């Protein structure tokens, strides 16, 4: 955001209103989620969303270390978001940077809201999000995947959190920014949302938006979260209802 000029000759929205990857303004990139993909973790989910590839795993509830962090009244939901070194074009140095720590913090907060943490005092529920391939929108992808991994782990939850961003590109509000749109766009609004209860649990914004544009964008993101929620539920349903055919039937749900 914030004004990297668009390279000569590139248009993010064409004369037909189509975006650079051919999508309509309110169209999501293809999304598929598979739950229960890891053997060692308590719960897991693998997600492909556009060109993002994200793995999420949950361990716990388990003893919380160090001890002085234990909360005697509830579990701590501790999220660790990480981009692997080769997930981006310029190799990223391994280890947490400031951006990933911020995302870890707000993702932890969003997930804490839906977990019945009071059932598991003094414990930690650890959520690991590894971005294997990054292509704009990884925090939303990570929160969406982590939510499914928590459910796959059998952690009691109020509901799933679905997450998606809206943004502004060439003065048009669009959904689910792709990489070029993220690089050269005018604003981004990542949203984490609980469709059943209409609650916003994650919200950021950067760029330049009028209040009306923001209203439009927030509305688009919220609507998209409802679709994403269906994909999440579908992934969990496949995981739990057809165990007999599991070996054959591991195909992933697609956004309709």
């Amino acid at each position, binding site marked *: 955001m914030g004004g990297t000029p668009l390279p000569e000759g590139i248009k993010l929205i064409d004369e037909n209103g189509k975006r650079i990857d051919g999508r309509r303004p309110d169209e999501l990139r293809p999304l598929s989620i598979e739950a229960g993909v890891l053997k060692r973790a308590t719960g897991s989910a693998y997600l492909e969303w556009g060109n993002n590839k994200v793995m999420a795993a949950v361990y716990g509830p388990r003893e919380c270390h160090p001890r002085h962090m234990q909360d005697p009244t509830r579990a701590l939901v501790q999220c660790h978001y990480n981009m692997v070194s080769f997930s981006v074009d310029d190799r990223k140095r391994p280890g947490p940077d400031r951006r990933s720590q*911020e995302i870890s913090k*707000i993702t932890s907060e969003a997930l804490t*809201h839906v977990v019945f943490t009071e059932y598991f005092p003094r414990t930690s529920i650890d959520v690991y999000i590894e971005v294997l391939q990054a292509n704009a929108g990884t925090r939303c992808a990570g929160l969406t995947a982590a939510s499914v991994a928590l459910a796959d782990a059998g952690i009691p939850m109020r509901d799933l959190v679905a997450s998606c961003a809206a943004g502004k590109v060439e003065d048009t509000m669009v959904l689910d920014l792709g990489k070029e749109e993220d690089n050269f766009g005018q604003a981004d609004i990542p949203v984490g949302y609980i469709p059943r209860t209409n609650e916003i649990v994650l919200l950021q914004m*950067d760029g*330049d*938006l009028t*209040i009306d544009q*923001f209203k439009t964008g*927030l509305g688009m993101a919220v609507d998209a979260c409802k679709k994403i929620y269906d994909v999440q539920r579908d992934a969990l349903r496949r995981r739990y209802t057809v165990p007999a055919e599991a070996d054959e039937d591991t195909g992933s749900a697609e956004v309709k």
Partner: protein
Amino acid sequence: MSKDVMADLKRDHIVKLLSKGVRVDGRKFDEIRPITIEKNYIMSAEGSARVHLGNTDVIVGVKLIVGQPFSDTPNKGVLTTNAELIPLASETFESGPPGRPAIELARVVDRGIREGQAVDMEKLCIEPEKEVWIMFVDIHALDYDGNLFDAANMAAMAALKSAIVPAKRADKGEDFPLPVTHEPISVTAVKIGEHILVDPTYDEEIVADARLTVATNEKGDLCAMQKGGEGSLTVDEVHKVVELSKRLGAEVRSKT
């Protein structure tokens, strides 16, 4: 466990008062605490300001040194924002490298400055691709009584507005005032139960369900936003805070 008992009691007290329309310190829900700003507080910094927002006390120093631009913005200066939540300011802050709260604070203030285009970064280019001014905005909390986000944003803006680019010392021509062209102001509100109140004190912050910081510019447009906390907000509550931030941001701007 005593900590939690105390927090519960404190919360009960605060909520009971709020339901009568009263805040503990007698302010209205949409009232910001008294602000004092001392500019040019530190003569070793190129720009500086110490801000009291009620009892919250924050100092920001701006340093400018000659360095290399990023390869994707060869003709722009570089902004680096850092926050130190030192244990001098609160028993809840720890020694050592910045933790997640300090990182979030720095990144939100940074986003306000950057996305609000506070400084004309092109004027900080000395020679494209070779030399630009690197601008360090260092935030130090001295006394923490809630709402560091807004206090730090104000102090950063005041420090930037007071800053002189030390071109002469670096043998790069004559000194000139830092080209501050916009003044994004953030306003933070918290949700406690059903109530939305701006500029929370420490006690209000620790019992709050959710926090929303919104930065607006002179036109009343949005440039940055950050939700925090484990609670949720409805879409209406978000829009209410956006409106509050626009109105109160303009008030703050007129005073500073």
